[in-house]
């Protein structure tokens, strides 16, 4: 389990990183924390010819509040978010980090890396869609912002061009009543199902919780219920709401996990996420 050979490039700046990516094309991969990439390289399931290391780029790590929004630099580690004081508006981010792998993974893995890896069950991907994050990306043509809902195209496939780099993630909307919960047989594993809820997540329908699910579709799946569910943001109606969400989503049988069971997990986890969000 030793990786194939590659050439190593250390970028000192975002501009240099983008230049390198442009020069090297599809054979290059960006490495930040490397917590997903290196495991795949050790299995030789990924074998980039070039690695562009952006970990030494200054100014890409850190958490800032700008007005009501939260800006998180791409190199910010999961653990940095875990221990940051983001109460009350964005406490959901800190609380969710305990679901991300384990401590020694969280100390190295980054928000930018997680989003770029585009695993549909990954917590950052789900949170980004739930909270309508804007992904700030640098490329040869300059800066562009991608809405989280447009970022994920399929399993491990994102809208990033090979020569683009995530530099920052902006969470524009406060979410004091949001939560993510998930289920796996063993702690720290990728979830069979993950459910994230923002009780105030539908500005157009303030009484209906916004739900984003992981593990039921190739990418994080937002679920919005119709006006029949107005008023389900309060305790007592979470069970009814969760059942409706579970009944609405399309789920297929999978190796080892039937659609019926997965649907049951959706119902359970949506309800529990609602309860946790209400108590937040």
């Amino acid at each position, binding site marked *: *389990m*030793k*990786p*194939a*050979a590659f050439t190593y490039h250390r970028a000192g700046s975002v501009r240099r990183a983008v230049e390198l990516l442009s020069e090297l094309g599809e054979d290059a991969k960006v490495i930040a924390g490397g917590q997903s990439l290196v495991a795949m390289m050790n*299995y*030789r399931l990924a074998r980039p010819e070039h690695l562009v290391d952006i970990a030494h780029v200054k100014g890409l790590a850190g958490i800032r509040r700008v007005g009501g929004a939260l800006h998180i630099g791409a190199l910010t580690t999961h653990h940095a978010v875990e221990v940051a004081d983001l109460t009350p508006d964005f406490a959901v981010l800190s609380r969710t980090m305990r679901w991300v792998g384990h401590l020694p993974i969280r100390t190295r893995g980054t928000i930018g890396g997680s989003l770029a890896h585009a695993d549909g069950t990954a917590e950052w991907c789900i949170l980004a869609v739930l909270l309508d994050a804007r992904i700030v990306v640098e490329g040869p043509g300059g800066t562009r912002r991608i809405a989280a809902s447009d970022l994920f195209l399929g399993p491990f496939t994102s809208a990033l061009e090979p020569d683009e780099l995530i530099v920052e993630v902006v969470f524009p909307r406060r979410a004091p009543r949001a939560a993510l919960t998930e*289920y796996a*047989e*063993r*702690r*720290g*594993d*990728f979830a069979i199902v993950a459910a994230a809820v923002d009780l105030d997540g539908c500005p157009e329908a303030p009484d209906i919780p916004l739900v984003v699910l992981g593990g039921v579709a190739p990418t994080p799946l937002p679920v919005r219920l119709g006006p029949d569910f107005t008023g389900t943001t309060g305790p007592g109606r979470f069970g009814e709401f969760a059942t409706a969400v579970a009944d609405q989503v399309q789920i297929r049988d999978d*190796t080892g*996990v*039937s659609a*019926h*069971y997965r649907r*049951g*997990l959706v*119902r*359970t*986890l949506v*309800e*529990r996420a609602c309860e946790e969000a209400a108590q937040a």
Partner: protein
Amino acid sequence: MKEGRIGANGTWVGASVPRREDPRLLTGRGRYVDDLTAQGMLHAQFVRSNEAHARIVSVDLSEVLNVPGVVAAFTADDLNLRDMVGVMERPEHEFRVTAMPVLARDRVRFAGEPIAIVIATDPYTAEDGLEAAVVTYEPLPPVVSEEAALAPDAVLLHDEAPDNTYVDVTMFATEGIDAVFDDAHRVIGVDLRSGRQNALPMETRGVVAEWIDRDEQLLVRTCTQIPHTIRDTVAACAGLDERQVRVIVPDMGGGFGQKSCVGREEVAAAAAALRLRRPVKWIEDRRDNLTASFLGREQHYRARAAFDAEGHLLALDTDVICDMGAYSAYPSTAAIEPMMAAVEMPGVYKLPAYRVRARAIATNKAPTAAYRGVSRPQCVMVMERLMERAARELGLDALDVRRRNLITTFPYKNSNNITYDPGSYLESLNLCEQTLREEGWYERKAEAAASGRVMGIGYACYSERTALASTAFSERKPRALVSFDMSDITMDMTGSVRVTTGTLSHGQSHETTMAQIVADRLSLPIDKVKIVQGDTDKITYGFGSFASRSIVIGGGAVAAAAVALTDQLRILAAHLLEVDTDAVELDGEGGVRVRDEPERRLSYGDLAFVAYLQSPRLPKGFGPGLRASGSYDMLADGVFSNATHGVVVELDPGTGGVRILRYVCVEDVGVAINPQVVEGQCRGGIAQGIAGALFEEVRYDPSGQPLAPSFMEYKVPTAMEIPDIRIEHLETPSALTESGAKGAGEGGTIGAPAAVLNAVNDALRDTGVEFDDTPISRELVYRALENGPVGPGAATPAH
């Protein structure tokens, strides 16, 4: 924690002596096989089969040799090594002799099977080399299940094994057993399967081999539980004299049975080192460990038990099928699981009539070695499920049914023809139940039910026959019989001793516990005793560590050697002090004194000085030097450790999740040489049993490709899944062993799966669903709870 370092009677035995192994292992100064180097060392990896079942049309390694860094690559034909063939001396219809080649020759029988060895200047380029190998296959139909293997038109894996069956024995068959079933008040059935598992030592397998000209020896440093068997096998496969192979075992990161067979890669790497006359290292990577090492546990039991109306067990008829995978491993053979299951089945229960058919079958999966407990976890599952089901069907209390059937008079000869030495079967059950009651778990369970939560309490009672040796193994009729251990002891002029053991600690703490035994015999401080293990040049012969044999058999041998040395010390002291040998005794302070004149004494150092440097003063026929030998064999059926496990679980109706809230183990291993070490063995064993009950399974797809090549799929439980475990000791010293101890290595693993199953089933009591299989499927738990309570009636097995 600090107190009690010396046992209650002023002995080392019985004290939780700090481990001698710890300081080096805690400071990074342990030396495991991958920490070893040698001048000019090369690194090996293996070209492995992509196919589960195929004929090899061709193996082309020409491009491999062009990869930068690759030094050599060899196929089976290049190395021309003898096959490994394990033999049981049983009739041909009971045991079919099949061969396991070191490298696959014309046929591959599982995905991951080694076909060629690639040797390079570093491990990275060795893997580059593998990618350049071209193997052409002619696929054969894969056989990946019991049903497929036994199908009338099944393709045979081995021509020598018709019906894809390595072993097929029917045993005991108590006279009149059919009539017992015909007349029984109730016949209860159980049909259960246990999933394939990986013993999973944290250190994978590995070897460093090199030819040493000066010693005329192939030095094989390898992490194995069986150093002498590795020596014999490497010599046999490579055509060397046994003196030309030396096996040294460095610090070792666990084994649990996976390293109790000869690895094909160990032999191939050694042969390559011999061929190249350069050191060759092979370190198994985790993917290969998970898919292509030795596995175990995949079994299917169909049992029928006859009970009377009061719940007395009258008869048991069992059919056992063990899926041994693609080869009969050496030296344990494919008989290891079925023979263990057949003989040990009744466990702690009085069984008047017994019949068993036990088979080992061939499938296109990685082969099976011993894994901690070997079949007994499943035997206990069968017996404990039967007890529970009998209680349920007869309307009796399940613990009372057990109490009616537990063996309580000893020695007891059961219908499996084994005599059980004394134990505390009933006492351990009573104390375990009492402990859970006193801790309030029964109230908590009732409260939980009232608030809609789902809790269950389950038990398992078992005994484990430990220290199997000549008598026990000869009944199974292997050609190579695991039996004695022998030990040599030498004392130097500082009064320190070195003691050899043919057992091989790889986590079990023998450097400490065996030193405790010797220190007591010689009245020495423990730091004056050094245990020497794992070197075939220093130890005349030995079988290694497995089957919970070490502390009884190895410990018996070091004790015998120490006692023999005390005889030498007394003979020499009496001669020098000019009294009869009977008139002297050890003084407990590192010397020998005249019993009636205690001021007349000679220290061990004084005696050793004479023995080495003043030989004219020695008595006639003595020495020279101060050394002695001892050996030990278990010339009885073995000694039985026993325990009861009690488990409290909570099920999550929303997810099917199973959480263990409490785990209590009441164990009896006779005299605990080092109680802290015994507790460690229990807890670790229980964790592995929980792993099998709830988490781990090596699965294959229909084409025979392994589905768990990483720890993402092979779910080894962590500290979040394994609870704190309360251990209570009972002590029934064995009269058959040197120190009263019984083996303690495997027990935890044996009891845990049944206890967890019973706890889950207790929680599901109202649903009408019962689980018999492991690992327990969370989806099936979810479905059982989803359907809610049903009225009383026959339970439905969930498969």
